[in-house]
Each structure stands twice: as structure tokens, then as C-alpha cells.
């Protein structure tokens, strides 16, 4: 290579204030290697860096033999760039952490150092200048799931009015689970009073675009440039025209149990899942609507706003964004319910003023219960973990029952009480009237009334009550698998979404640019959901800044078209979907590639080059360190 003959390679040796030079004989190193060497007491100090910048322009390639590249890479990169040398024409030898500090034998350490530097010298001869690229990034964000987490994230993001926020909600309304509750732990805050304002707010934001009845079907791209395929089911009611007057509902002849109310109440074929939902427009249940079968048009006739549209259709469309925030919530353990046995989510509806009984705690026969058992930990054994929020919710129920039915006996059957901080206040109050029975096992049966069998210190016990509430454990939503597949994300051992680092990146998923908040990550209270939502929004705002481009690492893989036989071997290997097949050749999208080099190692035609870790470079380093 003629290119090589023009190379002038310089080696900077760092004594590291004796940390290296006491263990490695640097004079011997200088004698043993075939390149210009400059030994300095400390390369990373201002004086050291000054020396480097004075002398560096002499060289075409530079080796720094110093401490670990992980610590010093950026510092050297800056000096090198200032001297107008391409930073990829340098290499760092880890003489401190991986040589001087792991040896007590100066002779052997010196020999090792010489070989490591020889490896670098041989390798660097094959280094090529790489061009750093910056790409345009889309500032817009797609938020998936319009529960409390999604809505608060969308609101935070929308403060920046130059950014569009697309909110994708599967249901015909927003608000998630929390909007179905009456009061919230630990302070028994009124849930609709607390949540209606932010929900209204998000609907009114000009830069928040809400799609209800919608889901994500497909995703392409990565941080900065995502392309999402969205499918949206027909609602048959124009949300912009409808004012929520209910006229259509009154005339609809169809009656059906309302699943949103756990079938405790009926609804029409055109209906609101709950009273007061947002957006304040009903939805038509097409399967049960009589329009197709009998040409029934009662609702159309009743609507003076011309809001009903039977021609509405399922549609698919694309959204572009730079980041995605997932907030699709959790699920609850499916306990065996009965007429008198309630799961906790169903009991929430019994307590709700907009619920089937307008908040009255009544038995199916209309009578008021005289005794209620609240059974904790339903599903805990099967799930294999404590769901952490249910004890507090159980205290909330006790309090609310007692307020409404002061003479009603309340029993808690519990394993452990998990009531930290503020939540113990609620317990202190509840323990004045409710009875607590500690038991690790229980059985709940309906037999006219309800029998609860449990085992406490004194043996097997039987409790006859009028009603029982089972505190359903929190579990991953069954749909999470599909979402994880679409976004290529990992799930943790309990099946919730895995974060990139539980401690340091608690709202970042394992894919760049995809964040998560709320119940999708595990059991959490409303305040925790909101903390995560706002944190995730903050991450987006700090990453996708207007007018700033995203850095694309040049250390990625590229395909030599001449050599590529189009065998597609690399395509399934790429963990990022960066390798694609186009016009009979494989190509790699540089913005998606993360530079792992798995494809380069596997390409039968050796057509893929892992930049900065090329086969030639590694071969050369092997020669240097061994010979």
C-alpha cells in the first residue's frame, strides 16, 4: 500500500505519575518499538494535553499508551480533533488498568506492554479516517396508551408547542383505569376531580393529536426517525361534531350488558363506556347495531348535529416521530368472581358515583351488606410476587365502606401488610373499626352468602359474610407481548417491560428512543406512574432538541456491493433490523446499525465491514500482540 509508506505514526507513552512507569519499563518499551515515541509524566493533565497538541500535527496516526480508553477516549478525541486529525486515526492502549495495575513483575509487564503497543501499531496502519455524521431528527413523539401516565407525558411534552404529540389510545376514551375509580389512595382524593382537568387539557392542546380506538401495528426506524403504522377502528360517531347530548342513546333499541361495567349495567349499541368519559362522544358497537341487519337509523334521525356516520371505516395510516413513549398499563389477576364476590377493579365500579349503582354498596338483591371480607393477595402465589399497591387500596375500601355503612362488619384477610409512609396513616384509621386476620391461605366460596376459609395461628377458621372483595394482584397486560414484539423489546422475569437499567435508566427501554412509564413497567400507584411519565417526557425533551441533529456513530457496518452475493445471511442476524435486502443486494441502514459486527463475522462473502473493527485491523492487532 502506497498509503502506508506515507504514514508517520507517533506513540505517546503516559507515565501516569508513576502508576504506569513504576510497573512498566518505558525506556525498554521505547527501544523495542519501531515508531517515534514521546513519554510524558501524565497525558491527561492540561500540561500533558498541551504537549500533545503541540507535537501531534507531525503525525498521520497516533497511539496513546495510557489508561483505559473508557476513561480517556473523549479527552484524547478532543485534542486530536483540535489538531485537525481524524479521531479514528488514533488508538489507545490500555497500559494502566490492563497491564501495570495487574502485574507485580516489571519484566513481564514490560514485555506485555510492548506486545500490546505492537498490536496497536500494526492495527493503526489499517485505520482509515471516518466521517462523523449528524442526521435530522424528528422532534414529534408518539405516546401509546392514554391512561394517567400517557396523558401526563403528553401534557408535559406538549408544553413545547413546536412539537407534535400523537396520543394513541386503544379504547374509545382516555383516562385508563384511574378514571374508573372514585377515590385514590393514600389521601382519598376524588379521582374524577383530580383527573378530569388534565384529561380535558390534553384534548384541548392544539399540538396533541389524539387517536382513539387505535393501536400500533408496525414500527420501523430508531431514535430520531421512527415510522409507525397505526390502525384505527371505526367509531361511527364524529367526535368533532358530537356534543355528547345522549339523544342517540335514548332512542337506540338494543340492550346489552356493559363489559366496561363488568356487566353490572346495560348499555345500548351506541353507548358511553362510563358516564362522563372523554372525549365526550359515544361509540357504536357495530356487531350489535341494527343498521346493517334492519336498516335501523334511529340514532341518525335523533342527532341534530349530524355526528353519526355509518360510512366510517377502519383505517390504517403512518405517523413519523423521533421518539415513542409506551404507557399501556398493567392488567389485574383474573380472580373467580361471583354475584357477591368482587374483584377489586369491579368493586371500584361499585364504589363509583358514575357506576352502575351510583356508588351505593349493594348486594345483587338490592340489600345492603352487613358484613364484607376484604381478601388480600389474590393471585400472589401464582404470580410469585407482591403487587405492592393492593394493601393500600384495601384500606381505601375499608374506609369507603365504613363511611357509607358504618354498621357493616369489615374483615381483612391478609398475609403481610405493605403500607409504607403515607399509607400507614390510612391503616391506623381503618384498624379502629376493621378486623384483621393474618393467614397465608384462604378459600372464598359463594353459598347463598359468602364463606371465607382461612388459617391463622389458632388453626382453620371459617367466616360467613354477605360480600367479599378479592384484591387482584397486578400482572403484565396480555397484550404486552405483542407490543414487545412490535418494538423489539425485552420483558423481565415477571413479564413486565424491561428497562435498560433499573437504577440509572428506569424509564428507558432496551431500544433507543423508546421510553416507557406507568403500569407497563410493573405495579405502581398513580403518583409513581406520573413520576415515570414526566421523567420519560423529560428524557425525550433533552434528547430531541429543536435545531440540533443526532450524532450517528461512524463505527457501524457497511456492505461492499461488489462482494455481496445477496445471500441474506446477515438479515436475520441483525438485532436491530438494520440489514435489509434491496435490489438483490443486502444493505445496512447506518442509522439503525449499532456496530456490534455480528453480521460482518458471519457474512460468507466477507462483504460486510465492521468499521473500526475491520477484519484487517483485528488480524493486524493479533499479529502484533502475539509475535
Amino acid at each position, binding site marked *: 500500500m502506497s498509503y502506508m509508506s506515507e504514514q508517520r505514526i507517533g506513540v505517546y507513552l503516559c507515565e501516569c505519575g508513576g502508576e504506569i512507569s513504576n510497573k512498566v519499563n518505558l525506556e525498554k518499551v521505547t527501544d523495542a518499538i519501531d515508531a517515534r515515541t514521546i513519554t510524558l509524566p501524565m497525558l491527561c493533565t492540561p500540561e500533558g494535553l498541551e504537549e500533545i497538541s503541540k507535537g501531534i500535527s507531525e503525525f498521520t496516526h497516533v497511539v496513546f499508551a495510557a489508561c483505559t480508553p*473508557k476513561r480517556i477516549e473523549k479527552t484524547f478525541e478532543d485534542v486530536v480533533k483540535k489538531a485537525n486529525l481524524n479521531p479514528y486515526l488514533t488508538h489507545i492502549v490500555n497500559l494502566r488498568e490492563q497491564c501495570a495495575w495487574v502485574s507485580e513483575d516489571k519484566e*513481564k509487564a514490560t*514485555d506485555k506492554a510492548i506486545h500490546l503497543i505492537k498490536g496497536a501499531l500494526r492495527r493503526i496502519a489499517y485505520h482509515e479516517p471516518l466521517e462523523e455524521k449528524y442526521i435530522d431528527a424528528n422532534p414529534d413523539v408518539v405516546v401509546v396508551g392514554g391512561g394517567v401516565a400517557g396523558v401526563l407525558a403528553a401534557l408535559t411534552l406538549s408544553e413545547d408547542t413546536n412539537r407534535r404529540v400523537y396520543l394513541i389510545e386503544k379504547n374509545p376514551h382516555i383516562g385508563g383505569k384511574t378514571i374508573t375509580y372514585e377515590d385514590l389512595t393514600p389521601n382519598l382524593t376524588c379521582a374524577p376531580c383530580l383527573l378530569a382537568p388534565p384529561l380535558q387539557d390534553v384534548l384541548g392542546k392544539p399540538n396533541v393529536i389524539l387517536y382513539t380506538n387505535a393501536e400500533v401495528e408496525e414500527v420501523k426506524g430508531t431514535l430520531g426517525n421512527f415510522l409507525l403504522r397505526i390502525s384505527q377502528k371505526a367509531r361511527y360517531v364524529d367526535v368533532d361534531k358530537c356534543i355528547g347530548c345522549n339523544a342517540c342513546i335514548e332512542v337506540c333499541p338494543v340492550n346489552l350488558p356493559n363489559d366496561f361495567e363488568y356487566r353490572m349495567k346495560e348499555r345500548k349499541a351506541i353507548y358511553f363506556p362510563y358516564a362522563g368519559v372523554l372525549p365526550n362522544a359515544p361509540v357504536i358497537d357495530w356487531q350489535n347495531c341494527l343498521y346493517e341487519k334492519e336498516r335501523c337509523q334511529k340514532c341518525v334521525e335523533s342527532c341534530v348535529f349530524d355526528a353519526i356516520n355509518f360510512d366510517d371505516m377502519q383505517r390504517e395510516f403512518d405517523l413519523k416521530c423521533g421518539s415513542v413513549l409506551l404507557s399501556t398499563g398493567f392488567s389485574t389477576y383474573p380472580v373467580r368472581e361471583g354475584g357477591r364476590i368482587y374483584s377489586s377493579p369491579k368493586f371500584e365500579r361499585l364504589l363509583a358515583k358514575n357506576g352502575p349503582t351510583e356508588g351505593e354498596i349493594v348486594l345483587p338483591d338490592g340489600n345492603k351488606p352487613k358484613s364484607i371480607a376484604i381478601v388480600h393477595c389474590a393471585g400472589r402465589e401464582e404470580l410469585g410476587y407482591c403487587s405492592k399497591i393492593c394493601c393500600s387500596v384495601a384500606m381505601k375500601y375499608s374506609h369507603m365502606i365504613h363511611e357509607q355503612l358504618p354498621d357493616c362488619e369489615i374483615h381483612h384477610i391478609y398475609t403481610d401488610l405493605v403500607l409504607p409512609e403515607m399509607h400507614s396513616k390510612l391503616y391506623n384509621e381503618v384498624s379502629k373499626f376493621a378486623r384483621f386476620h393474618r393467614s397465608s391461605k384462604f378459600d372464598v366460596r359463594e353459598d347463598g352468602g359468602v364463606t371465607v376459609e382461612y388459617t391463622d395461628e389458632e388453626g382453620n377458621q371459617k367466616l360467613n359474610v354477605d360480600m367479599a372483595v378479592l384484591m387482584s394482584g397486578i400482572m403484565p397486560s396480555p397484550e404486552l407481548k405483542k407490543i414487545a414484539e412490535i418494538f423489539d423489546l425485552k420483558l423481565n422475569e415477571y413479564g413486565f417491560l424491561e428497562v435498560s437499567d433499573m437504577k440509572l435508566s428506569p424509564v428507558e427501554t432496551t431500544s433507543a428512543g423508546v421510553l416507557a412509564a406507568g403500569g407497563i413497567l410493573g405495579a405502581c400507584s398513580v403518583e409513581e406512574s406520573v413520576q415515570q411519565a414526566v421523567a420519560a417526557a423529560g428524557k425525550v425533551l433533552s434528547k430531541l432538541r429543536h435545531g440540533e441533529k443526532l450524532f450517528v456513530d461512524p463505527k457501524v457496518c457497511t456492505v461492499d456491493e461488489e462482494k455481496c452475493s445477496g445471500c441474506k445471511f446477515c438479515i436475520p442476524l441483525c438485532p436491530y433490523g438494520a440489514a435489509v435486502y434491496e435490489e438483490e443486494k443486502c444493505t445496512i441502514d447506518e442509522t439503525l446499525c449499532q*456496530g*456490534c459486527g455480528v453480521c460482518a463475522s458471519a457474512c460468507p462473502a466477507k462483504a460486510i465491514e465492521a468499521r473500526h473493527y475491520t477484519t484487517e485491523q483485528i488480524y493486524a492487532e493479533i499479529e502484533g*500482540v502475539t*509475535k
Partner: protein
Amino acid sequence: MNNGPVVVAFCCNYCSYEAADRAGSAKKNYPENLRIIRVPCSGRVEPEFIVKAFENGADGVMILGCHPGSCHFKTGNHKAYRRYLLLKEILRAAGIDEERVKLDWVGASEDDKLVRVSTEFVEKIRELDTGGG
């Protein structure tokens, strides 16, 4: 000067290379015979790299990746493992004792493990060399 066997260790940037740095920071010694080559991922290691190392006089080669499930690049280490099985065949054909190659998982915090596996491996290569292996 004969310092004994030469062992080349391919260390992935995110786990085993980090573990080696931590061993250094904690001043935990291991044989000087180990020459670490930093690769982005154990999945970047081609079987030819190992053959190349032996051609150049290495006495042993280690490939140290992240634990299954914690690969920074999701599944690079699984691919390294699959390739390792293939590599053993290649080595057998080339008449190289397969015991001279070792694949292991070393997490970023496992500096002790790095020290242990590398020390044991260098010892083993020494035995193979003196025992005529």
C-alpha cells in the same frame, strides 16, 4: 526471554473488557500472558480470528462475552456461542487441540471471575505445553 504461553483474549466492550478494567482498578493480578483485544461484542469474533492467533504463535485463545440475556447488543453472545461450536470443528480439522480455546461469560462487575478464568486458563495452557499437548 521466555515468559511462557501467549494467550489472546477477545473481550467484549460492555462486559468482559469492563471487568478487566475493574480488575485493574482493584489491583487484582492475573498472568501477564493474557493479551486482551477489545471487540464491540463477542459476536464480532470470527472463527478466523482464532485460527489467525494460532498461526501467529498464540498458545491459547479466550472469547469472553456478556452473560446470556445481558448482551448489550441483545443476542451477540448467543451468536458467539453458536460460532464457538462451529469453531471447535474447524480447530479439530486444523489439528489444534480444542482445549486451547475457551468461551466464557464475564459480566462487567465480575472482575474476580475474569481473574479466575484467565488464571486457570493460562495454567491449563501451561500444562498442555509441558505435557506435550
